[in-house]
Every structure is written in structure tokens, then in C-alpha cells.
């Protein structure tokens, strides 16, 4: 992670505003990458020394420091040694110490080199070739484009800022489940917070100790979420971060030019994939959002598989979940929990062939039974009914 002293951001009032790299930075980034190319095949410490000095052109100070660190991480360090360095060190230094200074260092080098079957220069070249700073600089393959370096630097900057966060609040649409899964895996607490101003509910992620102070304990776990957010249909992340000696608000949203994590698998199963395809084909007026948002049901969180939303009348929304293996009791409890939660209309698609206990699928307007393949047309009909009913009852 980048140190906070290297972050291109401005603190204005109580907020921190990222000075993201963009196309305007490409000229000096090319010069910077040219410097790396010049040091191809030389020792990494020589490159690091060179990059610690200013570039021959005007550069924005913080952006350059951030980009330099990102590039140094991307460039490989190769070990080039004629003899195993560890063995060379052990033999040479012990031999020199044992002699007590009778022979010259050159004589010791020659002796050990001959014993190891190489020349003196090759021995000295190999002596520290395995150590990080002494390794040889090699460009990654393929060499990243300048545009990619821009996105990677921006991601590193956002992550470094969030490393200094204690709690984050997220408003996410689509792809929320992997975010919560990752957060829980990292030992974070996830709760849905209802804003006092009545706005959309937000997912609040923090650690147990965040209650007492602005701790940086959970920063790494929080920062890890950022590249995954790039795959959400829409997100807004808010965090209070300790930056340059102050606690400031940081906001990152869907428009941020950051490098995304590896693409998540679009669907958990063929069943989901076919359902999404069928809905897209049958109902151009309805949008299907996968893993739309976490919703609170009592003290637990529910992650519906899909949200069906009318393209024109956005208030017509139905949450859809595809149930795998089930028992009648499980379905009844689930329906009860969903009703308690004061959610938008909800459709539970139940595979009749996957019953794990004797009993019928409970009769309910919210349940659409299916066999092997979800009947998208039936789901859409039910969505029409439920959303029109809901609208009528509101009206």
C-alpha cells in the first residue's frame, strides 16, 4: 500500500478529494516509464535511486510518487547468478575470516571462485544477486499501457486512503453479495444502516474495535473491497479516513477511474444464467439486476439473487430469489422472515424436484414453483401482479 504522504489528494473543509490521474498525466508517465526501460537489466536499487530523484520534466509531485511506487511493484526483479549466492557468501566470508588477513581479499575471491568453478568477477557479481535490492530489473510481460498504469495508480491511491479508514458505508446496487462475503471473511461486522434523512439504506462495514476510536486495524480488509466494487452496477462508498493528521470524509463512486479486480463469475449457476437470458428476451421493459443490495430482516441480512425493476416506472420493483434444496418448514420460515422485513414485493422461485422433506410447496402469491428451468414468463406475470397491487394499495 502507498504511504499516506504519497497520496495525490486535496483536503478541503472536512473532505478529502482525490486528484485522480487521467489522460493529462500520460506525457510525464511516459517519461517515467522510459526511465524504467533505461534501467532494464540493471540492479533494482540503482533504479530506485534514480526514481527517487526528480524527473527531467515537470511532474505533479504526489501523482509521480504514487505512480512510481505502483510501477516499481509491477516491474519484476530477477535473480541472475553464476553460482548460488547463499553458498558463495558462506564460503567466501568464512574463508576470509579464517585466514586472519594473511592473504589479500582478491586472493580469497580467486580461491573461492576457482573452487566454485567460476571467475572472480562472476563470484562477486553473484554474491548478493538473490537480495531484493540487488536483483535485476525486468519489465513485466506484457508491459502495461500508460492508460493501465493510470487506473492502477488510482486504485492504489483509493486503497491507501481506505487503509486509513475505520468504518465504511456503502450504497451498492448489483454484485453486493461478494462484497459482504469478502468483508465477513475478513472478520468485519456488516450492518444495514437506515440514514436519518430517510435516504436509501447503506451497508456499514467496520470492525469490533472501530467502536472505540478511529483504528486502522481494519484498513487492509476495507481497502481490499475497493477493486471488487468496480464490478457493481452502481456504488457509492463513504468513509472517514485519518489523512495528514485529520479525520476527513472520503467519497468514491461508480465514476471513479480505478483498476477493477478480476471479473467475478457473472452467475452462480446455469439456472440463474438461463433465467437472466429468458427475462432479457421476454421483457424489454424490465431490467434484471443481479445481487442488487443487502436487505435487513430482523437481525440478519438477506441477499436476494435478483431485482426486477421496471424501466419506466422505477418504483415497480420485485426482489427475486431462486431457492435450491428446500423443505416446507424452510420455505415457511423464509416467507415469514421476508414479510417481517418490510421489503418490496418478493418472489421465491422453488424447484419442485429439490424437496428435502415430504410436503407441498406452500401456497403463496410470492412463490413460483418450477421444474429444472425457471419459468421466466410466470415470474414476470407475477411481478406485474405484485407491483400493480402494491401501487394500487399505495395509491
Amino acid at each position: 500500500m502507498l504511504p499516506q504522504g504519497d497520496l495525490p489528494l486535496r483536503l478541503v473543509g472536512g473532505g478529502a478529494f482525490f486528484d485522480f490521474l487521467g489522460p493529462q498525466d500520460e506525457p510525464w508517465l511516459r517519461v517515467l516509464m522510459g526511465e524504467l526501460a533505461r534501467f532494464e537489466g540493471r540492479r533494482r536499487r540503482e533504479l530506485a535511486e534514480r526514481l527517487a530523484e526528480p524527473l527531467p520534466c515537470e511532474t505533479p509531485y504526489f501523482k509521480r510518487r504514487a505512480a512510481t511506487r505502483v510501477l516499481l511493484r509491477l516491474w519484476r526483479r530477477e535473480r541472475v547468478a553464476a553460482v548460488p549466492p547463499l553458498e558463495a557468501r558462506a564460503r567466501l566470508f568464512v574463508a576470509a575470516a579464517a585466514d586472519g588477513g594473511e592473504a589479500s581479499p582478491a586472493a580469497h575471491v580467486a580461491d573461492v571462485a576457482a573452487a566454485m568453478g567460476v571467475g572472480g568477477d562472476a563470484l562477486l557479481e553473484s554474491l548478493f544477486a538473490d537480495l531484493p535490492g540487488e536483483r535485476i530489473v525486468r519489465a513485466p510481460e506484457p508491459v502495461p499501457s500508460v492508460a493501465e498504469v493510470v487506473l492502477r495508480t488510482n486504485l492504489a491511491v483509493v486503497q491507501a486512503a481506505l487503509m486509513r479508514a475505520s468504518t465504511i458505508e456503502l450504497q451498492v446496487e448489483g454484485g453486493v453479495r461478494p462484497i459482504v462475503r469478502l468483508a465477513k471473511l475478513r472478520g468485519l461486522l456488516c450492518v444495514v444502516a437506515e440514514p436519518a434523512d430517510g435516504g436509501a439504506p447503506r451497508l456499514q462495514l467496520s470492525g469490533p474495535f472501530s467502536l472505540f476510536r478511529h483504528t486502522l486495524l481494519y484498513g487492509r480488509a476495507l481497502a481490499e473491497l475497493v477493486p471488487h466494487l468496480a464490478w457493481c452496477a452502481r456504488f457509492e462508498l463513504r468513509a472517514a479516513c485519518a489523512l495528514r493528521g485529520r479525520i476527513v470524509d472520503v467519497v468514491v463512486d461508480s465514476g471513479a477511474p480505478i483498476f477493477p479486480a478480476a471479473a467475478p463469475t457473472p452467475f452462480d449457476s446455469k439456472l440463474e444464467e438461463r433465467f437472466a437470458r429468458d427475462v432479457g428476451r421476454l421483457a424489454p421493459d424490465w431490467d434484471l439486476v443481479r445481487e442488487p443490495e443487502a436487505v435487513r430482516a430482523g437481525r440478519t441480512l438477506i441477499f436476494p439473487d435478483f431485482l426486477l425493476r421496471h424501466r419506466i416506472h422505477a418504483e415497480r420493483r420485485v426482489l427475486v430469489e431462486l431457492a435450491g434444496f428446500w423443505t416446507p418448514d424452510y420455505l415457511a420460515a423464509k416467507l415469514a422472515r421476508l414479510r417481517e422485513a418490510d421489503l418490496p414485493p418478493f418472489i421465491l422461485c422453488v424447484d419442485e424436484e429439490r424437496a428435502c422433506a415430504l410436503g407441498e410447496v406452500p401456497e403463496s402469491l410470492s412463490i413460483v414453483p418450477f421444474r429444472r428451468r425457471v419459468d421466466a414468463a410466470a415470474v414476470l406475470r407475477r411481478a406485474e401482479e405484485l407491483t400493480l397491487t402494491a401501487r394500487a394499495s399505495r395509491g
Partner: protein
Amino acid sequence: MRLTFDRGTLLLEDAPPGVDVADFPGFLWDERVGALRAPARLAYALAAALRRRDVPLTDAPRPRLVPPSGIRPVTLRPYQHAALLAWRRAGRRGVVVLPTGAGKTRVALAALAATRTPCLVLVPTRALLTQWTRALGEIYDGPIGRFGDGERVLAPLTVATFAGAYRHMPVLGDRFGMLVVDEAHHFGTGAFDEALEMSIAPVRLGLTATPPAPGPVAARLATLVGPPVFELGVADLAGSYLAPLERITWRLALDEDERREYDALVAVYREAVRVFMGNHLGATWEEFLREAARTDEGRRGVAAWRRAARLLSFPRCKREALALLLARHREQRTLVFVAHNETAYAIAREHLIMPLTSDIGRDERQATLERFRTGELRALVSAQVLNEGVDVPEAEVGIVVAGRMGEREHVQRVGRLLRPAAGKRALLYELVVAQSGEVRQAERRGARLAAPGRSAA
């Protein structure tokens, strides 16, 4: 009602109505889980406070590991014994301040033997992780746990690096009843403080040779570990329990060409600073660096400053002086201290002495220290690894070529030479370039070494 450990904190569950949180400082209402929560370090104090108020407590955190048995007693020197007594009288919480080489580890081992509770020892470096494992092995035959340097082994006596403890305290926090914090001056600044907050251990002993000056950092350290309970300085013990120290500051003149180059570089740098400061009164060094990147003059100034510092760290005069000193002390165990790893490698290539840097892996580092102990290697060169804690009692001669971290680094470096041995006289050479900032730095370092500790004053 239950007081339970939850990932470095305490949760008060099933609180009966009428329990007023205001009576129990430390608890906060946690909306996220619908319970009262407090930092784990308050476990014993809160449980006692609840019991005093007759609040029924069915469960409270206790160290979950079985106490180690069979720890052998430790013999102490008089001042070590006094330090241990002072710590016990302070309620088994506090920091013992002793110079390097005075045997802080033995004080901790004696405290541990007397306390007989599962103990976690926190250390700043991987080298110290191994060193403490060995020290514990001398008084205890059971397995020693290790957290850090890629290992995660738990045992009633466990050693963890600060970073390892910080990362794993949510699961380690309710295992131990005692914490020993080596080089405790690293705490109190906020960096790893939560590692100490997330442990329920009521018994805490801090060890350091360089305590923080009175102020917010010292106050925070007192909250986390305890106040200083005993303090002696190098001047109090040198010649009796520490090897007598002879300091020789060798002022060296740069060669003519290097002096010319150095002066020219400094002039370029000073001019850039002068121009900048003329326009930005009271600006900081950081601001200078930022602005310098925007102008040719500034960029040249920064580059010149870097090169001047590098030139000063290992010019020809130091190179020659070092060669003379190494030849002169060929038969003695010698430590060479430099500012940068690459200087260490350059010296290693030129004089064929083994470097001990942060780049060197654990196994090789241990093998190197072992060879130094047995005399198979007679000299080591290091930038920072030997700065703190590493035990090299055989070292008799130190040569400070350059440093980066100031007076505290110097005190620690000198400490490497002070372990007493029969007839031993520690000899420290400081190579200083005349007519440079190094002269004043050397004077300040000398003053710090001569200062006595508070317990002796």
C-alpha cells in the same frame, strides 16, 4: 450476565435492567450488535467493578491457555532484582528502563517465572523473535509458540513480532495473562497500540533502553503497559555491570575532489532552499520537496541534496579509515554500522566481511550470528538489523561509518558492545566528516550516552 471476549473486545451480554453503564467506564453501547462493548485490556478491571457492585457475572474472560509449568528460576544481579521488585510493587505493571547489555531479558524471565501465567512476548523484529525463543528455551522445556516471520504456533509461552501480534490479537487476545513488551518505546505512538488494547492480560512488563520523553507518548505507554518503574543509564553501569566504553571520534577530511563536489552539491541545494524559503516563509521540508518538483532549480536542488548525503555516508576518507581500523582490530570481534544496505554490500565486497541486512533471510541471519559467536566470522557490517535488541555479546569493537536515525539509534548501536565479559573493554569509533553536519550529530550522540538514568540519580 456474561462478559465475553469478542475479537479483541469485551461484550457484556444479557445485562439485567438497572445496570448503569456510567458506573463502569470503558463500556460503550454497540448499536451494531445490540450490546455493551469495551476494549479487552479492561477485562479484569471491569469484572472486578461489576462484582463489587454485586452484579451477577456468570462468565468472564480468563487466559484460555494452560499456565506453563516447570519454569526454572532465574538468578539476578542486584540491580535486576531491584528492577523486579519495583515492578511487583507497582502492581505487576510498568516499564523497566535499562541500557542494552544490562540484562533486561533476564528481568523479564524472572518476572515470568514468578508470575506463572501464560505469557506473550512482543518483539519488534524477526531477529528478536528467534533470540527470545532461545532465551525462553533456557528456562522452560515445553514448546515455545511463535507468531510472525511466516509462523503461527501457539503455546503457553509465545513470542510474537509487533506486526504479528497486531494482526492476530483478535484471536490471541484472550489466551494470555501476561504480556512482556520488549523495546516498549515503540508503543504509545498509535502505530501498533491496539495490539496491547486487545489483550485481556492484566500483568504487563515493558522493557526499553530508550524510553519516550515525558509527554503524550509516554502517557499513552503508561496506560497500555504501565509507567516507568525502574531506570538506570549507561553511565550508571559502565565499568561495573557493563563493559567500560571508550569512544573515539575520528574527524576526517574529504579528499579535495570530493570536498569540491560536496560543496558544489550543497551550494546547489542551499540555493534552491533559499529561493523557496524566500517565497514561503515558515514552510516545511515536505513542502519544499513538493514544490521543488515543479521547477528545474528545485529538481536540481533535491537531486543535489540526495547526492551530497550519499557522498557523506561513505566517502574515500571513511573508506580508508575503515580499512585501517579493520586491519588493526583483525583479531577482535567487530561490528561496522552504516547508513544504507548498499554501503554494507560495498564494504562486504571490498573487505570480505559478512553483511547482516534486512534483506538477508532468517536462516542465513541465524547462521551468521552463530558464526560470529563462535569466531568463524570476526566482523559484521549492518545498516539497521543490529540497531536494536540483537544479542552479540562477543562484539568488542564498533565502527560507526554513518547512521540515519539519530541519537536513539546510536544508543542502541553502542549497546551491542556493552555486554560485559572478563577483561573486556568496548571500543567505539565514530567516523565523522569534518566541516559537515556530522560533527554536531556526533556531539549530540555523545551527550545522550553520558546522561544517567533516573533511578540512579
